[in-house]
Every structure is written in structure tokens, then in C-alpha cells.
């Protein structure tokens, strides 16, 4: 009797095995798609081989910074879809969304028929790129770690997408703007700042992050030296470090005045020297997004932290000490 049960169950399970195995057997045999004769083969920034179609007309971006980069290159019309997080520029919000950057819907991406999918190591997962490649959709992954890396990466993307000479001049222009900021700040002392990524819990930046590099370009330096990328900080440590300026990022409001009023109403914070002197800067979320918008953020920061170096512009400066 018992043996009878066992046999029956094993038969059912074996049947299930055969049933599910069938599609894979055929799939494995048809995996080797012939490479199109006019296709280009490039290596992306994480060393993966990418086979590109001769012409790239439809691009899906999997991160807000890539969407911004595409628009900055003036190639917004080639954007077939982006993520729920892509909110800049405003036109990006109207494109079809494919889900969250960390967990996009592979189906939604497939349905957009992209010629190329752009991903980045700072927010996307390797699993997504691997899964898309298995489906025969080319994925180019960017991996910038500094402001210069970002510009190099942007230049590579411009070339990859076959943008004309007019568009390839955009990146050299950005380099010039950075050089101009650096020239202005040549004789300025380095300002020590606390860069606040998140307020509660208090999260700041490590040495190897974009904002850290951005601060260097803007003639400043983080008071926190950490090898962790996004270290959590105790308020006690902030009191001990006494930063000259406090920089907030990613609040969207870009309104230093309300931020300052808020801090002045809070215990401990209100007694910090930087808060008492009104040395509070609020830069937008682009400061932590590796796109050409970083150059704007560098200019904005340089102006806010070194108003004396920009006598011609200091009337528009937002966080003027009282």
C-alpha cells in the first residue's frame, strides 16, 4: 500500500520535471543568435562585452542620472522609457516607466523594444543586466566614481549613441566650466563642511563618493573622513567636529532659508557654530546624481562656500551670512 503511494507521487513529480525541462532544452539550442553584420562590439565600463545594433534609436535608462545625461546630450527624443525615479528634466516624467531602478520589470523593458539599455553601478543591480542580456537586449553599464569619470562616461555615451559633432562638444564645454571654477578658487582657503545626505538617521559622505569629489572641486572638504561610502554619524561627533558649513542634499526644496529656520528651532543643532552663523547650504538632488548636472552643483557649491571669489555673482548667492 505505502509503496503504491510512493510510486504514484514519484511518477507525478517526474512528470512535472519532464514538463518543465522541455522548454529549456529547446531554449539552450536556440541561444546562439547570429551577430548582425553591421553590429558594433564595445566593452562597457564594468568590462562586459556589449553587441550594439548599427543604429541606436530607442534607449531605456535604468537610473535618474542616465536619464539626465541623455537629456543633457540633447538626445531626449531617443529615450523610449525610464524609471519611476527619473524626475529631471520634467519631460522624463512623461516617458513610459519600467519600475524602480533596483528592480525594473524586465517585461516592461522588453515591451519598449529598446536598441540599448543603459545601467549604472551606483544604483542598478548586476542581476538586471545579466537577465536582459540573456533576453538578447544589449546593456551598457557605466561606472563613474568622480566628477571627471562622469564627464568621461558622458563623452563615451555621446560617441556610443552616434551623436553628431555638435553634441560631442558638450562635454569639453563642461570641462571648461570646471576649470573656470578651479581658477577662481585658486587662492581660497579650503572650507570644512558637513555634507548631510539624510537627516534622521544622520548620514554623511565617505571619501570615495561623488559629493566628496564635488566638494574638492568647489574648494571644500568633508569634515568626516571615512572609507565607508555613506557612514552614519552621531550628533555628538558633529558637535566635536564643528564644521564651518553644513550642506544639505536631496531635499528638493533647495531653500536654505527654511532649512536654517528649521535647524535653529532644534536642540543641539541650533548651538552649532555653522548654524548660528547661518552657514547652511541646500543643493538639489543632482549633487548626488552622477550626471552633467554635477557641474551645476559644483558651481552652485563654489559660489555658496566662497562668495568672495565670485564678487560679480554674490548678489544671487542663496545662503548669505546675516
Amino acid at each position, binding site marked *: *500500500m*505505502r509503496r*503504491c*503511494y*510512493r510510486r*504514484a*507521487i*514519484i511518477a*507525478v*513529480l*517526474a512528470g*512535472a*520535471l519532464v514538463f*518543465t*525541462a*522541455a*522548454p*529549456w532544452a*529547446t*531554449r539552450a539550442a*536556440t541561444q546562439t543568435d547570429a551577430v548582425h553584420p553591421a553590429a558594433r562590439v564595445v566593452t562597457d565600463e*564594468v568590462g562586459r562585452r556589449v553587441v550594439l545594433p548599427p543604429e541606436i534609436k530607442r534607449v531605456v535608462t535604468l537610473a535618474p542620472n542616465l536619464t539626465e545625461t541623455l537629456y543633457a546630450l540633447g538626445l531626449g527624443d531617443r529615450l523610449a522609457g525610464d524609471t*519611476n525615479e527619473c524626475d529631471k528634466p520634467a519631460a522624463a516624467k512623461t516617458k513610459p*516607466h*519600467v*519600475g*524602480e531602478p*533596483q*528592480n*525594473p*520589470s*524586465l*517585461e*516592461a523593458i*522588453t*515591451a519598449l*523594444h529598446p536598441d540599448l539599455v543603459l545601467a549604472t*553601478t551606483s*544604483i542598478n*543591480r*548586476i*542581476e*538586471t543586466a*545579466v*537577465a536582459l542580456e*540573456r*533576453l*538578447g537586449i544589449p546593456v551598457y553599464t557605466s561606472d563613474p566614481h568622480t566628477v571627471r569619470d562622469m564627464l568621461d562616461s558622458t563623452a563615451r555615451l555621446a560617441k556610443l549613441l552616434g551623436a553628431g559633432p555638435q553634441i560631442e562638444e558638450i562635454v569639453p564645454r563642461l570641462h571648461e566650466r570646471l576649470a573656470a571654477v578651479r581658477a577662481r578658487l585658486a587662492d581660497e582657503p579650503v572650507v570644512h563642511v558637513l555634507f548631510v545626505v539624510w537627516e534622521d538617521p544622520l548620514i554623511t559622505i*565617505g571619501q*570615495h563618493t561623488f559629493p566628496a569629489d564635488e566638494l574638492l572641486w568647489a574648494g571644500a572638504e568633508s569634515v568626516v573622513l*571615512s*572609507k*565607508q*561610502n*555613506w*557612514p*552614519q554619524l552621531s550628533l555628538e561627533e558633529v558637535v566635536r567636529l564643528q564644521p564651518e558649513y553644513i550642506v544639505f542634499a536631496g531635499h528638493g526644496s533647495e531653500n536654505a532659508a527654511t532649512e536654517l529656520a528649521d535647524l535653529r528651532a532644534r536642540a543641539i543643532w541650533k548651538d552649532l557654530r555653522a548654524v548660528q552663523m547661518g552657514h547652511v547650504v541646500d543643493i538639489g538632488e543632482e549633487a548626488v546624481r552622477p550626471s552633467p548636472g554635477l557641474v551645476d552643483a559644483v558651481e552652485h557649491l563654489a559660489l555658496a562656500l566662497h562668495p568672495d571669489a565670485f564678487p560679480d555673482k554674490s548678489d544671487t548667492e542663496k545662503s548669505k551670512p546675516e
Partner: protein
Amino acid sequence: MRPLTSRRVLWICAVLCAVLLLAVVIALRMGAYSIAVGDIVMTLVNGALGRRERIPSEFWLVVFGLRLPRIALGILVGAALSTAGAGFQALLRNPLADPYVLGVSSGAALGAILSLIAAPHTPGAIQATAFAGALATIAAVYFLGRRGGQIDSATLLLAGIVTASFLSAVIMFLMTTLSGRDLRGMAFWLMGDLASPPAVDLRWLYFLLIVGVGSMYTTASDLNLILTGEQEARHLGVNVSRVKLVVYVAASVLTGLAVSVSGAIGYVGLLVPHLMRMIFGSDYRLLIPASAIGGAILIVIADTLARTVVAPTELPVGAMTALAGAPVFIYLMRRRVR
């Protein structure tokens, strides 16, 4: 309750399989990319006959590239977790036992996090190390949970819970101190995620599933006797320590298998065995296969919901298993109380 005959077991399993097939068809139909039922049937028929040239390439991608592998993975994970849950509930004589109670998922999570630290960009590494972590935890808990050279349910439960808490603490420590590392995959892993197909051939995983469920099934009659009392079972000639060892190893390996390919998907292993007990009674000869198929049904439905409710955003399937399973569970429980 009517006496359990092999015929009844087969009939119930056949009905459950039919429900599973229905769930699979619905899951194949639903998604961000809309395909008509007729086109799905056409794609499946042509695909099964090896006539790929007759299928539009988009349909091929969506059906064979995306949906079927994901459904197959869901069936695997659901069956493994539910069978493991039924096994642990008997072994530990505790209705609250689920596949993760003895720390297998924590061990697998630790393995996963170590692979993300050592080799963050290697596809497949996370599953391999997670499985290794699960196996190491199974061995550690086994040696800690023995009493007089045999598995003792109470000691095993305590050893498992302590090991699980210890490993969770290590994971929290690592995640806090290594916040700069690329631990993004970890969040998905801890919530449970069917979106990334494993690098391993699914057929190997199904082979392990069949071995696990099959070996658990060989103990079904003995488990029924043990549940009436260990002393009585011994008098009736059941080798209690051997049965416990088989159930422990089979349930743990099944859990490790599921966890390493999909992360820790919650509730399935707890809900489904109880659901099946309420519907079909607690005879393990029926409960084990019914739980396996029931778990597969629940995961396929839950994952379809997770993919489609707020498409294109994908929700964690673990949240969906509770959302889909809990109301049914409460209904059946209240009906029985009345």
C-alpha cells in the same frame, strides 16, 4: 474523515495539479506586456514542437524568456518551502514552526552577504554561497541540537532559534559597518525575489526538489505514528531517530535550496501546511504532496499579483504571499472553530 486510500491521495493531487495548471495559465497571461490567450497557446504549442520560426520573437522572449522561467522558479520555491514547513512542524511538534525557524535562512543570508562583499559583480556567486551558508547552518544546528546522540525536538528548536538570532546579529553588524559596499542585492534577498533567474540550470534544482520531497515522503507513515507519541511509535517498531534525521535533513536542504535561489520568501512555509491540514486532514501521506503542490499554487498566484498590481513596479513576493494566503487561512480557521 474518510480513510485515506492511495486512490484518494492521487485524486486530490490531480485536482491540485489542475488548479496549479490554471494558475500557471493565468500567470502566463498577465504582465506588463499584454499577449492574448490565443497567442500564448500558439507560442506554447509551437515552442513545445520546436518550431520557433513560427513565433514572433517578442512572444518568444516574453513567454519562454521571462514568464515561464519565473513561474518554474516560483513552483520550485513554493513546493520546497511548503514541504519543508510541513516537515519542521512535525519534527519540532510546533504549529508555529516555519522553514526558517532553525536559522537556515539566516545562514544563507550570511553566505549571500559574504559573496556580495567578496565578489559583488559575479553572477551566480550569491546563490552558491547562500546554499553553502544554509548547509553549514544545518550542520551546526544538528550538532548543537542533539541530546544523547539523537535529535531532541526541544533542544533542536532552541539550538536553531539561538543560531538564527546569532547569525541575524552578525548580518546586522556587517550591513551596518559595510554600508559603503554594494549590498543593494541584499535588501531584495532578505525580502525574497523571483525576478532574477538563477545562473544554475533549473533542472538541477528540480532534481534536488524531487529528492527532498521524495525522501520526506518515505517517512510519511512513520511521521503519523510519531505525532501520536514517540513512545508509542517506538513500540510499534518505528525507528524514531532515523525518521527525525531524514525529516530534518530533507526539510533543511529544501529550505536551503529555496532560499538560495529566491531569498527568504515569508509565510508560504507556515501558511500552506496549515491550510492543507484544515482542508484535507493531518495525515502526512497526503499532507506532504498536497503541501508541495499547494505551495507552488500560492507562490505562482502571489508572484503574478506582485508583478501586476502596480505594474511596472514589482512588489516583493513575500508581502504578496501573506496578502494572498492570510485571508484564506483566516476563513478556514474561523470555519473550523465554529
